[in-house]
C-alpha cells in the first residue's frame, strides 16, 4: 500500500489549532463587527475545514484527482446557492403589477 503516514505530532498540532480557532470564533461572536461577524465566522470555519481536509483527510499528500473531486463538490454547492440567489435577491427589483398588495413579499400573519 502506498498511503502516506502522517506524523502524530502533526495531528496533535492540527488538533490544537482547531481548538484555538474554535475559541477564537466563539470569542469573536460577542464582539460587534456588524455584517463582518458572519464573514469572520465563516472564514474561520473555512480555515478549520481546510485543516481537517488537508491533514486529517490526507489531501495534502494525495493526488490531483481527489482534489478535483473535492473542488467540484464545493463549486457545485456554490452554483446551487449562487444561481438560486440570482432569483431571491433580484425579485424585488421589478415593481409588482398594479393592484397587487406588497404583502405577498413578506406575509406576517401566522396560520
Amino acid at each position: 500500500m502506498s498511503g502516506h503516514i502522517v506524523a502524530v505530532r502533526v495531528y496533535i498540532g492540527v488538533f490544537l489549532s482547531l481548538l484555538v480557532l474554535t475559541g477564537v470564533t466563539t470569542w469573536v461572536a460577542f464582539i460587534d463587527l456588524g455584517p463582518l461577524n458572519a464573514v469572520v465566522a465563516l472564514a474561520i470555519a473555512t480555515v478549520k475545514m481546510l485543516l481537517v481536509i488537508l491533514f486529517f483527510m490526507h489531501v495534502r499528500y494525495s493526488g490531483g484527482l481527489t482534489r478535483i473531486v473535492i473542488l467540484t463538490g464545493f463549486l457545485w454547492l456554490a452554483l446551487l446557492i449562487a444561481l438560486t440567489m440570482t432569483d431571491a435577491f433580484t425579485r424585488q427589483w421589478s415593481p409588482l403589477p398594479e393592484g397587487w398588495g406588497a404583502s405577498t413579499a413578506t406575509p406576517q400573519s401566522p396560520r
Partner: protein
Amino acid sequence: MSTANTELVAAPRVHYLNASYGVKSWLLTTDHKRIALLYLASITLMFFVGGSAAVLMRLHLIEPQGALVQPETYNKLFTMHGVVMVFFFLIPSIPAVLGNFLVPMMIGARDLAFPRLNLLSWYVYVIGALFTLYALLTGGVDTGWTFYTPYSSTYAKTQVIATALGVFITGFSSILTGLNFVVTIHKMRAPGLTWFKMPLFLWAMYATSIIFILGTPVLAITIFLLALERLLHVGIFDPALGGDPLLFQHLFWFYSHPAVYIMILPGMGVVSELITCFSRKKIFGYTFVAFSSMSIAVISFLVWGHHMFVTGQSIYAGLIFSLLSFLVAIPSAIKVFNWTATLYKGSISYQAPMIYALGFIGLFTMGGLTGLFLASLATDVHLNGTYFIVAHFHYIMVGGAVMAYLGGIHFWWPKITGRMYPDMWARIAAVIIFFGFNLTFYPQFILGYLGMPRRYAVYPAEFQVLNVMSSAGASILAIGYVIPLIYLIWSMRYGPVASSNPFHAKGLEWQTPSPPPTENFEEIPVVTEEAYAYGSEESAHA
C-alpha cells in the same frame, strides 16, 4: 477464445447465464451482467405500468368532455405516468441496464469497482418502486410528477408522502450507480485504454454519472423537506408562514433539469456506437463528441430557471437562465452534426438498431430545436403550460431516449442473451414506433401552439381532430412497443445462436464470447487501437 471441452463437443460453454441456477443465484448475484438483467426486468415492468397510464389518458382525450375517467382520476393518471416514467424508467433505463452491462466490458474489467454496492442499488430501486406503486394503488397522487408546493405540501389530499418517499429512495439507487461508474471508469480501465481511446458510450456514461452524483442528492433533500413540511406544516415552502414555494422549484429543478440530460446523454452515447457500426466509419470528430457530453453535463446545471419563467421568479434571473439555456444547444448541435458527418459516405446498412439510431437523430433534433422556443423568455410565456411543452419533452425523452434505449437493447441483445432477434420483425417494429410516435406527438405541437393547456381532463371541441390523431398515434405506438417485448422474449429461447460479434462491431465487449463468461474476459485485454477503427478490415467480411 472458447474453453469448450474438446472431448465433449456438445457440452455447453459456461457463461454468466448458466454459471449457476436458481432464484438465489440471481437475487444475491454481484455480477454486473446479471444485475443489468434484474434492472432490465424491473424497468420493463415499470415502463408498461407508466405506458398503460398514458394509453388510458389518450383514450380519455378522444372526446372533448373526456371519454373514460373522472377529472380527479385523470390528474392521478398523468401524475402516475410522469412519476413512473421519469424516475423509474427513463432515469435508470440506459445507465442501469446497458451501462451496468457494458461499462466493465467496454473498459476491459471483470466487474464494476463495487459489485455489492451495485446489487444494493437494485434493491434500493425496487424498494423505491414498491413505495411508489403502493401509493398509486392506494389512492394515487395528483400533484403532477413535479410535486409543486404549496399544493403538494398543504392542499393535496392524495398519497404525496408515500410517492415522494419512493422517489427519494430511488434517488439513492442512481447515486450508487453513478458513483460506481465514475470510480470504475477512473480506476479500472484495461492497459492501453486511455481516456481518448474509450468508446463514446463510456464518455456519455461518465457525464451522466457526474449528474447523478451532483444532482440527485439535492432532489433527495428537497423531497425530504417536502415530506417534513407536509407532516409538520412548519412553513418551509408555505408563503403564509414566510416560506418561499419557489425555493422548492429551484431545488427541485436543480436536479430535475439535469435529469433530462441523465435521460438523453446515455442515448447519445448509444447512438454514437450504432452510427459508427452501421455506417462502418470512424466517428467524425471524436474529441468534440466526447467533450460535448461533458459540457452538456456541466451546462445542464446552469439552466434550471427556464422551467420557472412564468412563476414568480425574478425577471433578471430569468434573463440569465434564458441565456445559459441557449448554450446547451451548442454541444447538442455538435453531436448531431458529427453524427451526420459520420454517416456521410459511409456504407450504411439499415438493420434494426440503425433504424432506431436514425430515428433518434431526427426526433432529437426536432425536440432540441423546439426547446429553443421554450428557452426564449417571451415565447415561453405563450407556450408554457401547453401541449407544446408536452410534445417538446416527449420528442426528447421518447423520440430520443427511448429510441436510443431500444436501439441499444437490440444492438447488444446478442451479447446479452447469446441469441439473435428476428431482424425483419425488429425493423417493422422500429418503423411502427417511429410513425406511431410522430402521429402521437406532432399534433400536440400544434395543439400547444393553438393554446391547449396540458394536464386538463377536458378541452374545447375545436381541438378534437388533433386530439383524435394523437390518440390514434398512441395506439400505434403501444403496439410498436409490445412487438419487441414479444419477439425479444421469444428469441431468448428460440432465436438463432449469436456469434461473438454478429454486427462486426469494434469495442472490447465484442471480443469476448456471447454471452460473456462470468469474469467477462479470459484474459484482461490490452488496447492498442483507437475507438471505432472501422475500415481497416472491411474487405475481410464484406
